[in-house]
């Protein structure tokens, strides 16, 4: 048994006084003759957040999220109930409610093949205790000071520091029990700058499945502060972005949100089982330029999007989605994998015990290519160079995706010239991927800030890419 599973058993079974016998009793209630699969998911979550604003520690908050979610699956049907109490009678009630889905026709529970043991990708620590309160406050104050001393035009600084400690335990109908201890920390610096009555904002941050020391190491917190100020000042000087079809060069790292929106969601197993994705039925086909190899990799140690095991107990994987432009596979949870006759890929994720698992991304990125970033920019006569983005959105059925640049520049005659603002990019996923004509050798992952929303559920994710060029994309600025 892994250290994480041992901690999870102690936290979620021993402490509330649940024995294996009790679990078997709950599982027996959940299973009926018609149920194909069932699981019980226990969660113990603690989160602490701090806010510095106007130079003072303005707020602090502590959150408890704890409970169990019970699921019974019969064919394509799912019954689900959850409880915030880990007491046996409440678990039995929830099991009774969840099993009501199973009515007819199936063959009874099938045991899953036991997956290989997962290797631990982060230490099973409680990051809330990784610094004491005075150290947390000092860290935030130093970030505030770094932002204010970076430039006299800084008017407002908001620093947030969040540490989350999640312990999960999942038992499936084969009796397999797997646990995970998931630390997650996040820090952000947001600034408002002002010059001659004109105001702009900038924001930077990072995070990881690590202790809070992560932000002290390499002076990361101070780096976020300076980066937020730099971004805000760039935008102070920015002119309106152009409007129309242009070549677009995307910088390395966080702009990989392109991949998340343009292809990632469309390759989630549930949409493809249901035939609602623009990528449905296209495995083996060319869906991107041959320069593109895209993976979803939950196995990167310590990354925000990484998972030792997913929320169904399957070890995460390094799954190739697109290889040299050819669609290789989808991301799967156990239910969609079973219904599509493929193996689960370790992408079954849920926001909490109170949500159903679905196929979700982990860290999605494109592998590096041959070109130097300078060569890529030099190849563009008139275009956009976008290095930082806000969020994005996709309609997986039509393939339309959009994402908004919050730091972008014009490229004129092969050179990056002036900053522009208000550039929203819109395109069609498969089409845009086919128009990728140059891929850089400078793969970078984002700093650990991504959160992905799907059907009302938020989960932490990572993205990344090298510098790349899309020959044509619609840029939605206001300048002619």
């Amino acid at each position, binding site marked *: 048994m892994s250290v994480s599973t041992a901690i999870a058993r102690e936290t979620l079974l021993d402490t509330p006084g649940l024995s294996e016998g009790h679990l078997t009793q709950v599982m027996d209630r959940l299973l009926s003759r018609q149920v194909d699969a069932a699981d019980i998911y226990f969660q113990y979550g603690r989160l602490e957040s701090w806010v510095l604003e106007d130079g003072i520690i*303005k707020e602090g908050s502590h959150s408890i999220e704890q409970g169990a979610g019970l699921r019974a699956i019969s064919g394509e049907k799912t019954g689900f109930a959850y409880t915030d109490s880990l007491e046996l009678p409440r678990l039995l009630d929830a099991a009774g409610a969840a099993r009501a889905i199973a009515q007819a026709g199936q063959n009874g529970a099938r045991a899953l093949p036991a997956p290989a043991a997962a290797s631990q990708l982060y230490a099973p620590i409680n990051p809330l205790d990784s610094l004491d309160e005075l150290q947390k406050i000092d860290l935030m104050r130093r970030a505030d000071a770094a932002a204010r001393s970076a430039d006299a035009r800084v008017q407002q600084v908001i620093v947030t520091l969040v540490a989350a400690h999640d312990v999960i335990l999942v038992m499936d109908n084969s009796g397999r029990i797997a646990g995970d201890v998931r630390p997650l920390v996040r820090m952000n610096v947001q600034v408002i700058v002002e010059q001659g009555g004109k105001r702009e904002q900038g924001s930077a941050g990072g995070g990881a499945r690590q202790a809070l020391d992560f932000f002290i190491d390499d002076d990361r917190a101070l780096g976020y502060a300076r980066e937020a100020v730099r971004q805000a000042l760039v935008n102070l000087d920015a002119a309106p972005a152009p409007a129309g079809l242009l070549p677009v060069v995307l910088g390395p790292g966080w702009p990989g949100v392109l991949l998340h929106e343009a292809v990632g969601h469309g390759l989630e197993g549930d949409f493809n089982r249901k035939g609602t994705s623009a990528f449905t039925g296209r495995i083996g086909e060319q869906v991107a330029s041959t320069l593109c190899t895209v993976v979803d990799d939950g196995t990167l140690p310590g990354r925000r999007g990484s998972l030792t095991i997913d929320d169904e107990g399957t070890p995460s994987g390094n799954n190739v989605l697109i290889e040299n432009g050819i669609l290789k596979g989808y991301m799967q949870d156990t239910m969609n994998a079973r219904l599509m006759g493929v193996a689960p890929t370790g992408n079954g994720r849920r926001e909490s015990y109170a949500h159903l698992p679905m196929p979700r991304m982990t860290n999605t990125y494109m592998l590096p290519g041959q070109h130097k970033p300078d060569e890529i920019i030099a190849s563009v006569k008139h275009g956009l160079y976008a290095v930082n983005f806000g969020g994005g959105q996709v309609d997986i059925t039509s393939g339309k995706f959009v994402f908004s640049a919050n730091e972008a520049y014009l490229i004129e005659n092969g050179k990056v010239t002036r900053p522009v603002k208000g550039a929203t990019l819109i395109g069609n996923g498969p089409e845009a991927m086919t128009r990728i004509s140059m891929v850089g050798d400078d793969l970078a992952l984002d700093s650990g800030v991504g959160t992905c929303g799907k059907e009302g559920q938020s989960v932490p994710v990572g993205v990344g890419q090298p510098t790349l060029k899309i020959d044509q994309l619609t840029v939605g600025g206001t300048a002619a």
Partner: protein
Amino acid sequence: MSHPEQIARLQQVVEDLLREARQQGADAAEAGVSTQTGLSVTVRLGETETIEHTSDNGLGITVYFGQRKGSANTTDLRPEAIRESVAAACRIAKYTSEDPAAGLADPALMARDVPDLDLFHPWDLSADEAAQIALRCEEAARGFDPRIANSEGATLYTQRSGFIYGNSHGFVGGYPTTRHSLSCAVIAEQGDEMQRDYWYDSSRMPGELASAEAIGRTAAQRTVARLNGRKLGTRECPVLFRADVAPSLLRSLFGAIRGHAVYRKSTFLLDQIGVQIFPDWVSITENPLLPRAAASAPFDNEGVATAYRELVAGGVLQGYLLDSYAARKLGMQSTGSAGGVRNARIASSGQSFDELVREMDHGVVVTELMGQGTNLVTGDYSRGAAGFWVEGGEIKYPVEEITVAANLRDMFRQLVAVGSDDDIPGSIKTGSWLFERMTVAGD
């Protein structure tokens, strides 16, 4: 299940919490407790797909030691979790700074009586009955047009909730509420093209929900109408935001006049009270006391009495949206806005949707907005969009993969008309908004 009787139990929890906070040394405290149970049934392609029994509890407490503040919340309402939470809030307050603006809302503003806004109408239906309604909805959608080839399903969701808020001024108030909704999303196919769209309704009272068939047909109609979408050349032209996407423009306005954005000077509507920000015919109000409405509440999240209010009159901004904290930062008084705007409405300039299409003559009708391209600090606005191209005052064909862009400050000032077509679900009542000129980017 949350019944009015349960409110008494929640009230006890809140009172215990406030007492516990005082015992741990807090000078002032406020707490809220909520409980919710519900049933969500999704059908897809004529079969039940998921039956979800929801049951959520939540408790939040904020303590004040002088002007220092600490907060905690928990989904676990057992006594040990409550004790842990109060202790955590008190511990945090040892480390936060003295903040002159921190504290409870002004006691003089507390709601004195809590009117019954008729928000509790439970729907006792079984999972089977819920599935039957959702099936009728999806069937109406799938039967609407042969091009409806696939479905994401239809979902009936019914929930009942109760909550109590109390603070150490002695204010305690709460009430039960219900919400019921039915939604449907389908997919139309033609050749290689696939388009998805949806429709829904929600209400406090089961009998006020639109019929399952009507919701299904609307979902199908909206989906089929997207087929054969074309791109559009980049241009400047009039843009009409259809009523179902227009609420997002009001939400941008509300985001820009939120007290927290104002005191942080992070809004393009800084220092605009008393200033003409819309044409003089524009009137925007909020009415938190509307019976049975989606966002009704007799008091805000700090116990402050809510009231009917003009936000914009004669095109002039009348005030900000202030909770007690932002109010103190700005030297103003809370407007009962902790928790947001409740039941906002913009008055129509009188034209029907068809009349607006004729009036615009040519341009884009926006029926979908995508992405987050709204910068409330500068007002810069650039969103992904889909909709229809209008020529000669008539809708000609669907358009997609375009963006619409301008600055919100200019858009608000140059608003041409607001339609009378405000029959949309949700807490914001608005018709379609017509703008004379925006940049539309395409190919």
